[in-house]
């Protein structure tokens, strides 16, 4: 959907056109649910976040500005809903760590494990590794790498300057590689 089409769709939503609301849901409910599920790690919570996101989006549709994408706007709302829910459950601040030590944890300088996993196994391993990360690491990876928002949109969704978002993204990717490495190392089938 082009930016112009997104703007037209939102204008129809604001005008109260039921078909436009249906189109909005059908186009973005999957991305919002997947984002919420991976960020919150719980299907029931993901449904709550998805519902609150669309309720909030429909209430505030007139506030949508076309500088960013509609998907970016919806995921920004979903992130806010998710963090509010997660804050109620637990807080997991990320410890500051040097880039080198993150790299070493990720296997920088170590030998390369033999890769014998098929695509499905790699995806399952990736989902497990994502689940091990802190919410701040997970959300930047979800927005930028999985949902494919631009760097600027991801930074805006996180409320960060672009340089700070990029730094967080790089560290999150290193922690993800470290988590994958831990998963491979602990593989009971001895693939490490």
């Amino acid at each position, binding site marked *: 959907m082009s930016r112009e089409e997104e703007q037209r769709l939102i204008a129809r939503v604001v005008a109260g056109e039921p078909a436009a609301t249906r189109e909005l849901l059908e186009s973005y*409910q999957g991305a919002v649910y997947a984002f919420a599920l991976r960020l919150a790690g719980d299907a029931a919570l993901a449904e709550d976040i998805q519902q609150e996101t669309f309720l909030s989006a429909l209430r505030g549709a007139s506030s949508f500005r076309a500088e960013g994408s509609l998907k970016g706007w919806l995921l920004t709302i979903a992130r806010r809903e998710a963090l509010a829910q997660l804050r109620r459950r637990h807080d997991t601040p990320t410890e500051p760590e040097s880039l080198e030590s993150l790299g070493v944890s*990720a296997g920088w300088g170590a030998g390369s494990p033999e890769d014998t996993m098929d695509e499905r196994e790699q995806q399952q391993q990736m989902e497990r590794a*994502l689940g091990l990360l802190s919410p701040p690491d997970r959300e930047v990876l979800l927005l930028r790498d*999985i949902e494919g928002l631009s760097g600027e949109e991801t930074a805006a969704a996180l409320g960060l300057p672009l340089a700070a978002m990029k730094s967080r993204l*790089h560290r999150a990717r290193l922690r993800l590689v470290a988590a994958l490495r831990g998963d491979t190392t602990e593989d009971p089938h001895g693939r490490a």
Partner: protein
Amino acid sequence: MEEREVAGLRCSAVLELLSDYLDGELAPEARAGVEAHVAGCNVCERFGARFAAAVQTLRKLPAPAGQEGAADRLKARLGSR
């Protein structure tokens, strides 16, 4: 991790630039510097390949299953507003 300097760049400098390299956000000169280092440093070549493969797998993850019920309940909730 034993640091080396190859093609005028230390391994730690390459580590710092990996995401920008992967995202195509390095200036041509910096990009060429990373490529020259990696061509002469098997440690960074190995790690860079693993890092890039992980990001590629992440980017291609399929949507999680089990959304059908959620979609129905979402429509019902919005429909009852």
